[in-house]
Each structure stands twice: as C-alpha cells, then as structure tokens.
C-alpha cells in the first residue's frame, strides 16, 4: 500500500529512506496567482480553504502533491499582506513598503521595512507588543482538519529571535545592539521569544508535526555576527524555545532557517535540538559537503537554487541540479527537496514543471544515480 505524505516525511525525518524523496515548494504571491490562473480548472476540484491568510498556497500544495503544508504565523507575516496600499503597518507597529519590480511574467513586489517601532532607545518603555491570543488560528485548524492525516504539517513561527530585533530596531542598529546594547537587545528578543513560544504552543495544540524557526545569521559568504556573539546572545534563546516546545510535545520536530553561509553554526543548531535545516543555499554552502559533514545528525531541506538555476537556468539546468542534489543529499533519508526560497516571479513555467518532473524522475529510493 502506498504511504501518505505524512508517513514519507516522518520516515525521512528519522534519517531513513521512504519510497521517494519528499518535496515541497512555495511561491511569491504573484507567481501563486499566475499558477492559480493557469491551473484554475484543476484546483476547482480541490477541497479546503481557498485563500491562505498571508501567502495563499494550499490548493497549489495539493495540486503539486507537496508532502508538507506550511502555516505561517507571527512577526514575519508582515512581509506579505494582501492590501492595495503601498505602505502599511502591521500589529507590531512595523511599517512596510511594497517595492515593485518588472519581470517577463509581470510586475512583482518585494517588501521592505521603512519604519521600525523601537528605533528610539526609549521606545521600548511604552511599547505594547501584540497579544498572541489575537492570532487567528482558524486557518491552521481548517488545514489540519482537511489534510492533517495525510500531509506533514509545518507551523511557521519564524524570525522570532535576532530577526525580530532587526524588524523592531532596524538592521543597522540591531547589529550594534547585539554587541554594544546587550540589555536592550535581550529585552526585545525575549519579548519576541515569549510571543512566538505561545504561538508555537497553540500550533502544537492544533496538531502540527513540525515548527519552523528562523533567524538570518548568514551573509552570502560570511556570518553576519560572530559565532561568539551568536553563542552568547541568540543560541540560549533558541535552546530555550526549542526545549519548551519539545517539552510540550516530545514528538514535535524543529526546523531552522537561515539564508546564506552559516556553516560554523550548524553544530550549535544541532546542539539546541534543530532537526531540519533550511535552505542550504548552494551559492553559499555546498549541500553535498553539508550532507557529508552534518547529515547524520540533522536533516536538510531545500538546496535547489532560486537565485540562479530556477529563474535564469534552462529546464535542463533545473533537471541537472535536482539530479545532483538527489544523488548527493538523498541517500540515507533526512532530505526534503525544495527551492531555497519562494519561487520568484521571473521563473518560467517550464522551469517549474522541470522542478517537479525531475524530482519524479530521479527521486525514488533507493537512489540509483
């Protein structure tokens, strides 16, 4: 009997080989919309909620047979908001601006923070953070009700430690704070940790399998902060969060995301209980090396380039990259193949099709490449 996506992911997360390599993908909202139009007929038949609150996905997840579904919550949801306004403020008092850019597939938008609510040193004294009880959990409940038995469910409570400091203080100031205004940095990060921990508990109660934390700690080829600063300022908070989440449910798995080069920190992440590492950008770290060096102790998620291959390569380039990743990262399990970020608007439909067809072509276990 065929196994479900959920079982496939559970086997992979146990560092064993299921029937095939599990996969998933996400899209920027404009690409999501284009794909919904392209596959309108096919998704009509799909049950489930029609639009996700922040980054509509579910029907496409089901259509493309993704093994894992994502539920986005917390501070990072400010990034994508379904609004006509060019600038908007979220619940944290962060002001975001949508920046348009042209692609062959139309106009896309990325978002930047233009006003940081805690930019002034004194602002923290009168700041009231949002209440996690105000988060609308109905989307998570509905998705889990429809798909929780069949699919592996990932709750996102990302950007909760150092990233939250950047969101609230500003990137420049937060880089100073983390080494020179440590008390203030702790206070702000702890506030965010409390919020996201409560949110994590709510998602565990609803029945997620995995919780996704994130903090961008890497530049393209270098850490943003030193390993020493990470170990002093960030790691204990991650350890606390993960410990509390696993105390709540000892079977819960933890994913951690950081863009860029973070190789010197991977042992630390394993140390605090991270089970799954995302995205291993091939421009910054060699996925084959990371698999060899750390693969028996941490699972890998993503590795397919959204910076080069998917937007700028040919379908053959996409196939070659997927073949290489499956050959080097899939043996022994512990691998969820995916794009390293949301598939961008300048990606061709042909390359998206090549992404899925190549995984089908090469993804069966045992790997014979």
């Amino acid at each position, binding site marked *: 009997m065929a196994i479900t996506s959920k079982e496939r992911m559970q086997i992979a997360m146990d560092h064993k080989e299921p029937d095939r390599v599990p996969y998933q993908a996400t899209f920027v909202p404009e690409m999501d919309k284009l794909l919904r139009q392209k596959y309108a007929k096919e998704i009509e038949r799909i049950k489930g909620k029609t639009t996700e609150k922040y980054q509509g996905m579910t029907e496409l997840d089901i259509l493309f047979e993704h093994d894992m579904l994502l539920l986005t919550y917390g501070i990072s949801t400010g990034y994508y908001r379904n609004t006509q306004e060019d600038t908007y403020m979220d619940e944290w008092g962060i002001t975001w601006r949508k920046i348009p850019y042209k692609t062959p597939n139309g106009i896309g938008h990325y978002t930047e923070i*233009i006003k940081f609510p805690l930019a002034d040193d004194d602002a923290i004294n009168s700041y009231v953070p949002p209440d996690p009880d105000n988060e609308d959990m109905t989307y998570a409940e509905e998705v889990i009700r429809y798909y929780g038995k069949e699919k592996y469910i990932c709750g996102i409570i990302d950007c909760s430690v150092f990233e939250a400091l950047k969101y609230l203080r500003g990137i*420049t100031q937060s*880089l*100073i704070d983390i*080494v020179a205004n440590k008390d203030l940095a702790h206070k702000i990060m702890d506030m965010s940790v409390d919020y996201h921990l409560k949110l994590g508990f709510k998602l565990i109660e609803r029945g997620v399998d995995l919780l996704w934390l994130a903090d961008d700690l890497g530049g393209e080829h*270098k*850490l*943003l902060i*030193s390993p020493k600063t990470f170990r002093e300022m960030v790691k204990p908070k991650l350890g606390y969060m993960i410990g509390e989440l696993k105390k709540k449910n000892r079977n819960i798995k933890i994913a951690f995301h950081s863009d860029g080069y973070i190789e010197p920190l991977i042992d630390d992440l394993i140390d605090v209980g991270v089970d799954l590492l995302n995205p291993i950008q091939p421009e910054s770290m060699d996925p084959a090396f990371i698999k060899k060096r750390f693969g028996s102790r941490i699972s890998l998620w993503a590795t397919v380039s959204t910076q080069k291959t998917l937007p700028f390569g040919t379908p053959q380039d996409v196939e070659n990259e997927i073949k290489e990743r499956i050959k080097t990262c899939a043996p022994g399990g512990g691998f969820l193949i995916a794009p390293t970020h949301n598939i961008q608007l300048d990606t061709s439909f042909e390359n998206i099709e090549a992404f899925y067809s190549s995984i089908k072509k090469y993804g069966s276990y045992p790997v014979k490449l």
Partner: protein
Amino acid sequence: MAIEEIKKELYNNVLSGDFELTKELALKAISEGVNPLEAINSYLVPAIELVGEKFGRKEYFLPDLMRSANAMKSALDIFETEIHKSGIERKSQGKIVIGTVKGDIHEIGKSIVAALLSAKGFDVIDVGIDVCSDIFINKVIEKKADILAMSALLPITMPYQAAVIEELKKRGIRDKVKVMVGGAPVTQEHADKIGADGYADNAVDAVKLAESLMKQ
C-alpha cells in the same frame, strides 16, 4: 595618562570599537597637545585599516566593523575640528559625493565606505539613501566633487546607477567627475557596461580605488 599611552589607547579603542572611550581619548589627546593630524594619520587610519583587514580575514564581523567605524568617526570629527580651528586645512585627498541610489534604503555598506574614505583624508559628502539623480548631480556640481560614488544593494536598483551616469552625460558633465559603483549584486562587468570609472568589491578596496581615480 602619558601622551604615548593616549595614542596607544586611541588605536586600541578604534580596534575594539568603544565609541565613548575613543571620543574621550580624542579630547584628552587634544588637551595634552597631541598633533591632531598626526593622531589621524598615525593612529586612527592604521587602526581602521587593520579593522578592514580583520573583516576580510573573517576575524571581524559586521557589528565589529560598524562599531570601529563609529568610534573612529567620533575621534576623527574631534581632530578635524581642531585642525580647522588652528587655521590649517587637512590636505584633502579629493571630494566625494556618496549615496545609495533611488529605491534602495540599504545604508551599512555605503556608510562604512564613507567612514573609511573620511579617515583617509577624503572630503566626503554623504547624501544618504534612496537618493535621486538630481540630488546626486546637484551635489556634485555644488561641491565641485572629484568623484561620485553610488551604492546599490538590489538587482532592481542597479540600473539606477546607469540612469545617473546617463543624466551626467545629458548635462554635459560626465567628464568632470569620476564615477565609482559598489554594492552586493554589483560586478566589474556591470560597472564596465554602464560606463562607470571603477568598481570595488569591499570598503578597503573602495578607498584604494578612490585613491587611484584621483591620480588619473
């Protein structure tokens, strides 16, 4: 504190990035009669150059670099004021208008380059972030700048560097100012394509580039 000790501590505190202490030491140096020009050239500049090297060797990270640049700048301002008061001008290596192009609000890289250029004796006019062509060009004209330095941190704002160069041509002043470009996605190839006079990959090389452009 003996004069020699002040000088040594000035160097050490720029290295460790202690803003308050560096500022205090600069004031102390002045009151003890340290020659401000010597303090800049013999202590601040070597310290910030070592910071740049350590960053290149991955011994220092962004927070260290930013702290050191801020500390260095706090002392530099004090010494420059003092030089100015004495009626002597610090010999300028050249005038540079620097900013991040329109649509782009990234400031860290640009500010570090500006700080290093100041330390090396350039007269730096930092026009900030999200800067439109008119502001860049009017400032170049107003200050009779030798170099225009433009930063872009996004592939989608890189073309604006070309737009500013085109505007310089339209106004007939392209040959009056050297143009240097930088930023994470920017490459030598891009710089050549848009007709810039130079590109540097990091802040230390940006200073070397500015120095070489001044010799041309």
